[in-house]
């Protein structure tokens, strides 16, 4: 069994090593084919927002919900809930988080990183921060565009809704950090992280949120949803049930819990990377 490389005397510390890995990984992530695909995916909400804006401009009566003219802020809130919070943020977390180390293992390039005189956990940390910057750079412009396209419809005021946009951007960044850290742990500890990641994001989380009791506290969504200022949409029977059993923790509790989730999962992922022996397929 190979022993983890021990940093040599005078070798860079954890944070400076992570900084170097971050530099290397950010360029790779930003200009990769998958980022182009995710850019296209994030263009979906922008296209939808454009279509809604055109529809609102063409029809003088504007967009109506239950016969009542829908305000732009309400539609924007719905898009934040349904597209970003329930779909895009978890998907980005699963996609990038699980592949932080797994991609290097698949490409058989993990050896080059692990033979450098830096702590192994610095590789994970650097890549995690690169993921965070990359995804935030992809998601936030998309949200901004959707905001400016949708909010002015139905006599909505951009200035009035702007504080909520800032809160949304912060909430999405925190969500990306939390999901990314959780799935980084999954990616470092499991051989096939994707399926479990998808089970967690699209099986466990939506299911558990429907149950009363404490189980929902074992999800990221429970704490993240407490940070959303918009009203939860009633788009389906499941959403209505979710609304019934919805408990909202305080913002400070949610932030604290999310910080604990990020810290704990990153620490565990770092330990897993330090201790695990990655066997490369021949």
């Amino acid at each position, binding site marked *: 069994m190979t022993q983890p490389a021990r940093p040599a005397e005078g070798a860079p510390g954890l944070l400076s090593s992570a900084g170097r890995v971050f530099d290397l990984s950010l360029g790779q992530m930003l200009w990769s084919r998958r980022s182009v695909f995710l850019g296209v995916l994030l263009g979906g909400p922008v296209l939808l927002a454009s279509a*809604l804006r055109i529809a609102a401009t063409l029809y003088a009566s504007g*967009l109506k919900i*239950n016969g009542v003219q829908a305000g732009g802020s309400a539609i924007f809130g719905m898009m934040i809930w*349904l597209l970003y919070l329930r779909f895009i943020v978890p*998907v980005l977390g699963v996609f990038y988080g699980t592949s932080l180390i*797994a991609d290097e293992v698949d490409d058989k390039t993990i050896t080059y990183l692990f033979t450098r005189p830096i702590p192994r956990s610095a590789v994970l940390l650097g890549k995690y921060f690169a993921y965070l910057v990359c995804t935030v750079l992809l998601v936030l412009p998309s949200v901004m565009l959707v905001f400016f396209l949708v909010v002015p419809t139905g006599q909505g005021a951009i200035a009035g809704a702007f504080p909520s946009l800032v809160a949304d951007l912060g909430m999405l960044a925190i969500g990306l950090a939390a999901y990314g850290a959780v799935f980084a742990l999954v990616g470092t500890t499991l051989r096939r992280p994707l399926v479990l990641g*998808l089970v967690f994001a699209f099986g466990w989380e939506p299911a558990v949120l429907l149950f009363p009791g404490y189980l929902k506290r074992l999800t990221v969504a429970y704490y993240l949803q407490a940070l959303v200022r918009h009203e939860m949409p009633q*788009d389906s029977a499941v959403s209505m049930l979710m609304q019934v059993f919805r408990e909202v923790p305080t913002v400070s509790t949610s932030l604290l819990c999310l910080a604990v989730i990020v810290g704990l999962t990153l620490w565990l992922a770092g330990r897993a990377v330090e201790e695990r022996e990655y066997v490369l397929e021949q």
Partner: protein
Amino acid sequence: MPIHDQGYRRYGGDKTRGGTGWIVITRAGIRTFFAKRAFLGLLLVSWFPFFVRAVQIYAATNLPQAAFLAPTPETFRQFLDQQQIFVFFVTVYVGAGLIANDRRANALQIYLSKPLTRAEYVFGKLAILMAFLALVTWLPAIVLLIVQISFAGNFTFFKNNIFLFPAITVFSFVQVTMVATAMLALSSLSKSSRYVGILYAAVIFFTQAIYGVLYAVTRSTSLSWISFSANLSQIGDVIFRQPLKYDTPWPVSLMMIAGLIVISGVILERRVRGVEVVA
């Protein structure tokens, strides 16, 4: 060292019938997945709703107080609806790497250098996924029907709802074909099975989310054709003679499903190719 005759000698063995190469691929693929414990666990979990329904049928037939739990055609429709989440996970687990892993390992050229056509290769891979999907949709639903007959001790329910057997079969076939061809087409687009899995999740959940927003804005279900899950649900309701959930005409939903299958076929036709050596 004597040199023997080096002349050409014809192959003396038996020739395999053409068009059966896909069976080898399917058999090998099915065996590979059955050897994985995690996958067996997933299959076991996906049969959990079946056990719940079996208990429901048992209670309804044996306890007069639980007569309200008596199965109806809707029970079978709901059962297949509930299996959708397992269909998703099995599809990602089995299907994501079916062609992507071969492309990654440059195995496609090796496959196609054998007496195997591209169609046989694709069909062999498709059959692996379809077999496993049938294991979580068609098989439990049919077994549930048999369970109902055996618990009731008569054929009354079966005779009264004779359309259930073809309905289960047709709906499962439509669902399995749509899902399997879409996943196989996505798998042929990349060398990374992880990437393929995410692409598939994006196709399924993103279309659903977009429809969710449009429904929330318009409060009309006539745009449900955008979501592939909604299309499948609409066709399912037609096949099971249930009231339709969405305002979209069912032929439109059927066209969307057929369109997805055709597009997947075109992608597979373009992507699954060997290396052409030009002299």
